[in-house]
């Protein structure tokens, strides 16, 4: 799965959700969806703006985590 580490970067940059959503031009509700890993996809334009505003790289925001396989052997 892909984890969004936006809250970590925001804390490092001392940036509030309100300020970031305003600078990104998205609603606080949508930023919350992104921050809480509830989103299904992220636009390149959003990612581009995030990197620019937070002065970071894509890999600082997105992280791949291997998901644990759920057993299907009925045990």
């Amino acid at each position, binding site marked *: 799965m892909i984890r969004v580490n936006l809250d970590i970067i925001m804390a490092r940059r001392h940036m509030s959700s309100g300020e970031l959503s305003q600078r990104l031009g*998205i609603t606080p509700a949508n930023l919350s969806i992104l921050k809480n890993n509830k*989103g*299904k996809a992220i636009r390149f334009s959003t990612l581009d703006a995030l990197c620019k505003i937070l002065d970071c790289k894509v890999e600082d925001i997105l992280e791949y985590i291997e998901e644990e396989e759920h057993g299907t052997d009925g045990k």
Partner: protein
Amino acid sequence: MDAKNLARLTRWLLYGVFGGIVLLLIGLYTWAPLRAFFLAAYGIGPGGSAVVLAFLTAMGLIALWILGELVAVLRTVEEDPFIMKNARAFFRMGFAAEAAALAFIAKCFSAFTFMTAVCGLVMLLAGLFALVLAQVFRRAVEYKQENDLTI
């Protein structure tokens, strides 16, 4: 006329049809001239009246079920029609229409009239259409959810 007003107008028309069917169903059991009119229209003698009455009542109840589902769908048009509830409503409408089609087709074998055959065909096609629409709505809801969660 915009979508909201069109939906509102259709909804009020459906309320009228709903009320009409309810009155007919009540009248069928309480008003002898109406019952006689229906029995004469079906060309079935007094001996077969219980079967015809049961058939008409069942069709009336199915019609009310379909109309109720349609009104519930039309209520959502004013806000957001692409919800899973509507997909399920279309599935139920399709199921109800197919049940009615089955009854009309069965009636064709016992008491054939031209209108029974037409009603059977119309209900069969309407039911299939509603079932297809249920699938379309399901896909639309999935697309919408994906779009809403794309930031």
